[in-house]
């Protein structure tokens, strides 16, 4: 009996010995899937230029992450798909007519500078795609504010025109109808025009429990409420503001970025309200027609402070001890 052979070289590790199937790759893959309706809408509204820019955005973002990891001899991380999400978000945030090299430059800023130099996934303190968009917006003001008209509205001598928010800033009375805006037959960045498509994606993410509904609801709700008050109860104008510009895209896909948003539900609520508030401050009183990206960037920077604030009450209220 002593000659019996045993398996003596088994793996010894700490519990738990099984893990859920949901890993970072799966989460990012789900986000990519949720962006598909908006991508299809963008291509439908703006044509193949939108598709080309989406592809360039994804490939360049993934390339820069790959290259950074190669140069610095870090573990390759492109498999987590987060770079692909950033690349697609950059494309979503620009007009479908901007030069392709500007997108590549934006990917470089987002991935190389904002994400990787700060330590890679999970370590960036602001949203890479948002920061890259603002970088483009400030550096290339002309191509970033030349908006193509939807294909169905283009005429022989008019292929570009102001966005609904641009019209509003010019005090134009020819605003598109809320239905046109809901469906996305308006000018704007290629991924932000169709509120319907973004809503489908956003609800999908909430259903898959990838994002919490707190930030999108607080963000959109605040925008709606401020518009309602500002326009003295005009339901129409309140709807206009939530369908216009980047509110839907920002609220569901960028203000919900885990890394740069608060941890606790109360913090998420404050974050969403802050985003909505700053957006409307810029839209109604600022010199830019649109303020979603600035609002998210500013709230990203506020996030450590919000965390500190909410942690204080978390510690005081006692969590487990309170038995809630």
């Amino acid at each position, binding site marked *: 009996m002593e000659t019996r052979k045993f*398996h003596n070289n088994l793996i010894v590790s700490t519990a738990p010995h099984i893990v859920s199937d949901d890993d970072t790759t799966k989460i990012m893959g789900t986000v990519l899937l949720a962006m598909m309706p908006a991508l299809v809408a963008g291509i439908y509204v703006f044509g193949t230029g939108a598709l080309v820019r989406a592809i360039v955005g994804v490939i360049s973002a993934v390339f820069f992450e790959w290259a950074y990891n190669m140069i610095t001899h870090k573990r390759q991380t492109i498999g987590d798909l*987060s770079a692909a999400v950033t690349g697609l978000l950059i494309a979503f945030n620009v007009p479908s007519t901007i030069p392709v090299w500007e997108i590549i430059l934006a990917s470089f800023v987002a991935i190389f500078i904002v994400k990787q130099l700060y330590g890679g996934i999970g370590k960036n303190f602001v949203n890479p795609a948002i920061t890259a968009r603002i970088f483009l917006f400030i550096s290339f003001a002309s191509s970033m504010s030349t908006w193509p008209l939807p294909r169905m509205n283009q005429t022989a001598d008019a292929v570009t025109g102001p966005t609904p928010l641009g019209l509003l800033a010019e005090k134009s009375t020819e605003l598109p109808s809320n239905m046109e805006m809901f469906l996305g037959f308006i000018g704007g960045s290629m991924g932000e025009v169709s509120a319907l498509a973004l809503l489908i994606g956003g609800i999908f993410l909430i259903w898959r429990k990838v994002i919490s509904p707190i930030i999108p609801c607080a963000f959109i709700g605040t925008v709606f409420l401020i518009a309602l008050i500002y326009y003295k109860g005009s339901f129409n104008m309140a709807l206009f503001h939530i369908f216009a510009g980047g509110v839907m895209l920002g609220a569901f896909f960028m203000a919900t970025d885990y890394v740069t948003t608060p941890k606790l539900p109360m913090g998420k609520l404050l974050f969403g309200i802050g985003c909505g508030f700053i957006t409307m401050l810029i839209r109604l009183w600022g010199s830019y027609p649109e303020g979603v990206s600035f609002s998210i960037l500013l709230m990203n920077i506020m996030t450590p402070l919000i965390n500190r604030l909410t942690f204080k009450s978390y510690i005081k209220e006692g969590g487990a001890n309170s038995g809630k």
Partner: protein
Amino acid sequence: MGKHLPSIHVKHYKHTSDIETEVMPIPDVVKICMSQNIGAPCKPLVAKGDYVKVGQKIGDTDAFVSAPIHSSVSGTVKDIVEVRGSMGGMETLIVIETDKKQEVSEEVAIPKVENYEQFVKAARASGVVGLGGASFPTHIKLNPKNLDECKVLVVNGAECEPFITGDNRMMIEQGQDVLDGMQLIMHYLNLDEGIIGVEENKPEAIANLNRLIDQNGISNIKVQVLQSRYPKGAERVLVYETTGQVMNAGVLPAQLGVILDNVSTVAVLGQYFRTGMPIVRRRITVDGDAVMNPKNVFVPIGTQIADVIDYCGGYKVEPRKIIMGGPMMGRATHSDESTTMKNTGSILAFSQEMAEVKEETGCINCCRCHEACPFKLMPMIFAEAYERRQVDRLNDFRVMQCMECGSCSYVCPARRPLSFTNKLAKGLVKEASKK
């Protein structure tokens, strides 16, 4: 009540729920460990060359937190050896070469019990410890300082760990023993109410217990159906779900007026008072993707894992990890030469694919660890604070409340070993408080 603590959905893997328990033949050799309970280890009462019989006491100690150990076989003591146990310390094993006659010891006799003191004494003599995995000596749980304040007996039949179905089979095959054990405890401890908490994924067990309760006309015991979510069977979660009382770390159920025992513990106790046979074998769920025929088996205590696996058709593929206990809180052992103990509820053998420790990636701040935690703790903060050795911060965020259920590690998409970091952080806090 009606409120639930946060919990997670964990894949059930309960392949063996419907398979009747089999009795494996006595192996050629058993190695009975002298450290089978929380508290003091036993000292061997036999010497090399002695002949021992089934149920004979072979280890005991005078220490308060302890329980005696009995021989699971009849045969000759070949050796008494010191080996390094899976927890790192040295353990004493009594190696017995079996003669397969299974002669029953003269010591085995139905206990005569007339009062509470005799009941507790008999409970100790049964050798029973918490069979759910904690292996806390049961007679101590039955002997709380504030006995007159204890009113409820909560029996844990949740069995929320994946794979394991031993408690389920216990409730189906030995439902009467469960109720007998409960009634004895309730009688001698003067408890008013008995609650058996069972997860809803065990309909046959629930139906069987309800049928027996009706048949016996028992009015003060009820089955409470729990959600099939992890970790409903954790002591502090179960107390909350069944009695609505918040139980913090470091508090004993008895302090809240609750006596809490695992369903198999109670049943084995019930069986002991019927037969006089102390705990010498237990039902073990053998499963995992490296096992040929997963099933529940009655295994003599001290049997080598390899023998149990052989009985289940051997390995299907090369095993790379063997877990004693559940996959969420159980312990990986380095060798299948390890032997079963009183608290070994399952033996899981995993292939390379399941055994592989997933590579850790960066935290993406998704907060799933916080949302999964039954006590709403923040493992990501613990990990950060532990790295920086911030004891105050760990205390502020109540790291000591963590019960290491593993939910945070399970849900983490970055595959961070958060539960383990919590454990390390708790160690750091304990160390700091000593100074």
